[in-house]
């Protein structure tokens, strides 16, 4: 395969898979297998793309460009940078694990379900690869449609309220972004992200940022988060927090910070304050949360805050750390939600007061949850320790108190994560935990272990991402040159 067409293949292969699945009247198992095949093919294509990616070259790689509508300067323009390569990787790996989970638990209405999962994969990859603002917006919105169905049809009891809240929140943000895109593009004469100039307009910056802070989310725009993460099926919650939320953070990096340097420095303190608030408040809520998914959900809010702290620090270390942490937290959060799903399937609940003592007789579950939990609380030597350290060091260069707040929040992370581990695995045996509740089955191990292996790999070599995201320039220089 031609290297440049890999970019488009990664977007459109899953879409083609979705259409195929909708058209073919296959059985549940055949449908699931076909979907799994497509998502694994995605991973293979991504590995190929990463292998062919030249980290010594600056600028956009594997670029493809075609006219969409010329009179307003809108084109189909896709390509990858170092950091978007990692996020695409996170997407395809995470989506493959989650599709596999859906297959494992045997979701009903399988053709609809697997088609939507593949559609979501394509749209999310599209967000990370598109280099045209309107194309970016189209994919950004397109992610919402499969998510709406996945939560609304396969979700928990209160799924309808959750979906309405989720959709209205995110659309409110993204429609303001559409207005900003129209204004920016017509002023610039092009909607191309690579060719487009920087802008000093604070209004436009805010128009973009409101979409991203809702998607990420940052405090106080997280109103949709607890319901959506609790009511979604576990694998969809995993995708939401592990992958989709990263689209908001990616947008901050690729568009808000890059294209609006002056407004970024003007609003830096404000955004840093929101990020710090998300970090501390999310950690506190996670500590107070009565259930497994609540802890993971609010810890995602906290982590989004931390990553935004790194991005808006505007320093080399901050950018590197933010990209590393996006990937690391993505893997952590997907693993945790999938384990939460496994626990819920065995006990019918995620509430801590009904759980406990699951470690006894279930070594695989205990070991995996322990490893992921320990990495997640940023134990020294882990991938998220590297990420958080870089972020805190980066924001320290801005002002010392930001990193003081961040360091405090890491203590909170240890508190909520240890509380989760002990409430699920240890303590007295919960009323819903019966002896019949099995350990993780080989099928479940097959989808969580690769994610954990990825985390362990990143723990051993965090520079694999942090030094390969903005090469060959320094991150700030790359941002300043708009990644050209």
């Amino acid at each position, binding site marked *: 395969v031609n290297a440049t067409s890999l970019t488009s293949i990664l977007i459109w292969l899953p879409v083609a898979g979705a259409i195929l699945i909708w058209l073919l009247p296959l059985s549940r198992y055949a449908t699931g297998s076909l979907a799994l095949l497509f998502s694994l093919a995605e991973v293979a294509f991504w590995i190929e793309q990463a292998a062919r990616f030249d980290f010594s070259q600056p600028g956009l790689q594997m670029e493809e460009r075609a006219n969409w*509508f010329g*009179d307003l300067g809108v084109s189909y323009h896709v390509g990858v940078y170092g950091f978007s390569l990692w996020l695409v990787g996170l997407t395809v790996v995470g989506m493959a694990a989650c599709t596999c989970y859906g297959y494992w638990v045997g979701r009903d209405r399988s053709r609809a379900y697997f088609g939507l999962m593949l559609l979501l994969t394509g749209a999310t990859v599209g967000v990370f690869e598109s280099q045209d603002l309107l194309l970016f917006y189209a994919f950004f919105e397109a992610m919402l449609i499969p998510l709406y169905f996945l939560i609304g049809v396969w979700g928990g009891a209160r799924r*309808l309220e959750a979906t309405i809240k989720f959709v209205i929140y995110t659309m409110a943000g993204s429609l303001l972004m559409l207005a900003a895109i129209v204004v920016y593009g017509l002023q610039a004469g092009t909607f191309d992200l690579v060719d487009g100039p920087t802008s000093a307009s604070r209004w436009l910056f805010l128009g973009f940022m409101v979409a991203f802070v809702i998607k990420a989310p940052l405090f106080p725009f997280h109103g949709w988060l607890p319901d959506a993460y609790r009511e979604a099926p576990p694998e969809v919650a995993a995708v939401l927090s592990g992958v989709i939320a990263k689209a908001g953070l990616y947008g901050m990096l690729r568009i808000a910070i890059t294209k609006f340097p002056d407004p970024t420095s003007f609003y830096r303190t404000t955004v840093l304050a929101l990020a710090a608030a998300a970090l501390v408040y999310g950690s506190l809520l996670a500590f107070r949360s009565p259930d497994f998914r609540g802890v993971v959900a609010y810890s995602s809010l906290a982590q989004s805050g931390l990553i935004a702290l790194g991005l808006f620090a505007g320093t080399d270390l901050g950018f590197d750390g933010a990209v590393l942490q996006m990937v690391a937290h993505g893997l952590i959060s997907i693993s945790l939600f999938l384990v939460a799903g496994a626990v819920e399937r065995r006990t019918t609940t995620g509430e801590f007061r009904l759980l406990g003592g699951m470690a006894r007789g279930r070594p695989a579950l205990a070991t995996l949850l322990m490893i992921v939990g320990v990495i997640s609380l940023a134990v020294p030597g882990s991938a998220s320790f590297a990420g958080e350290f870089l972020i805190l060091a980066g924001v320290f260069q801005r002002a010392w108190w930001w990193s003081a707040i961040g360091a405090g929040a890491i203590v909170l992370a240890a508190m909520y994560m240890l509380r989760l581990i002990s409430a699920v695995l240890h303590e007295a045996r919960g009323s819903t935990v019966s002896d019949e509740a099995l350990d993780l089955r080989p099928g479940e191990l097959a989808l969580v272990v690769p994610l954990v292996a990825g985390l362990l790999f990143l723990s051993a070599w965090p520079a694999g991402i942090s030094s390969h995201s903005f090469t060959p320039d320094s991150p700030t220089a790359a941002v300043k040159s708009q990644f050209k």
Partner: protein
Amino acid sequence: VINTPPIDWFGLSPILALTGASFCALLCAVLVPRTARRVAAAGCSLAGFTAGLVLAIWLYVDSANGHTIAADAFYRDRWTALGQVILCCIGLATTLLAVEHVPGWGRDADPARRDNHVAEFFALLLASGAGMASFVGAANLMVLFLSLEWFSIALYVMCAIDYDLEGALEAGLKYLIVGSFGAGTLLFGSALVYGATGKISFHGISSAIGSQGLTGDTFVVVGIALIVAGLGFKMSAAPFHMWTPDVYEGAPTTVTAWMSSATKVAALLLTFRVMTTAFPDNQHLWGWAFAIIATISLAIGNFAALVQRNVKRILAYSAIAQAGFLLIGLSTGSALGGRALMYYLIPYSAAAFGSFAIVAARERELGVPVTLDNLAGFGWERPFLGVAMWFFVFGFAGLPLGGGFVGKFYVFAAAYQHGWVWLVIVGVLATLVSLYYYLGIVRAMYMRPSEELQLPPRSGVAVSGGSPARETLLHLAVGAALVVSVGSLFAVQPLIDLARDAASALPL
């Protein structure tokens, strides 16, 4: 001796083809035996719209230099031709729908009466199509008014053709009264403009206003206001919308599908033409008027739709709101605005037609009006129609599933280019509100199990043996609408090129 002007018959040929087919369909009503009448009349309709389509395409190709024909009564240019192409396509789709779905659900029970007025229905459909085809090409106020009455009268009868269907007579009568009032307003406005300028042709009016300095003339200003109001009735823009929900709800759904798409296409294309051609110097007046009408339509349409339960009423209010979006493009009066309007009308009319066609299918299988409650489970029972429906409503909502997304983007771009950022913001907020009820339709179809549906389908009527009626032609029509709606997202450039060529016929 009256000197007859030379007439370019080819320029009028789509209208003539549709009128001729209409006469043939009417003859079917008396000459063809009842058993073959439906097929024969539908055949006339298909042939008529196909001929109209082919001739309109031919005219489009052949009319690069737009000019007036028949003594300055009619435009032969690409704006007219493209409008006629769209109208004939909608007409073809409506014919497919009508074969299986006219009369509406109320009369399936009585097979003896089913075919009573079917040939007249197709005759009226063709006649209204011919009227609209003439309307979009009108070059003077007289032709404008006559064409308006021509298609309106056909529509009044079509609304009430199913006279023992609950609400159909009410719909027909309401449309007749309100529509006549609108037509009267338009006529009065035309008279005032004629009184001030002494001209009825659009070009003549504009040059008279320019040369005699009549821009601020009271008669002209009031005349424009009345013409705007009269046309506002036809495009169901608020505050001239009050007939829309009742008529859309009461009329047979096939007629609603035709009205919501074709009437809007004709009314908006003609309005853009008459405003930019006859009143270019008064753009500061009508531009603002339409911007305000757009804002009111967006507000009323979207907020009123939020509280509806009947799906046809929701879609009717959505049609009012969509008129608001289309009017954003129109109000700018610029080349970009014209392009945006023409482009947007293509996915809009496909989605409007398709969504009502799907409602017709559900109505037929239930035997009662479709509400959000009895839509439950529809998406799972009829996968193709369900998927099509969410493509259409998400397209309305401006999600990137269809050309509606690009259309909205274009009208916002036109508004911004015109310096109206506030109108962009209004459009964005309106889109946000509209999401709630568009998502409500999808929620009703997919997210509530059909076991919740307490209403059993009528036995032995439309549903035989528990499975839905075979509706091949309906599926074909919906499929075509889906292809247009989704295809226009990908084929933006060719469609925009067509729209640009069409708009270049106007003095922009």
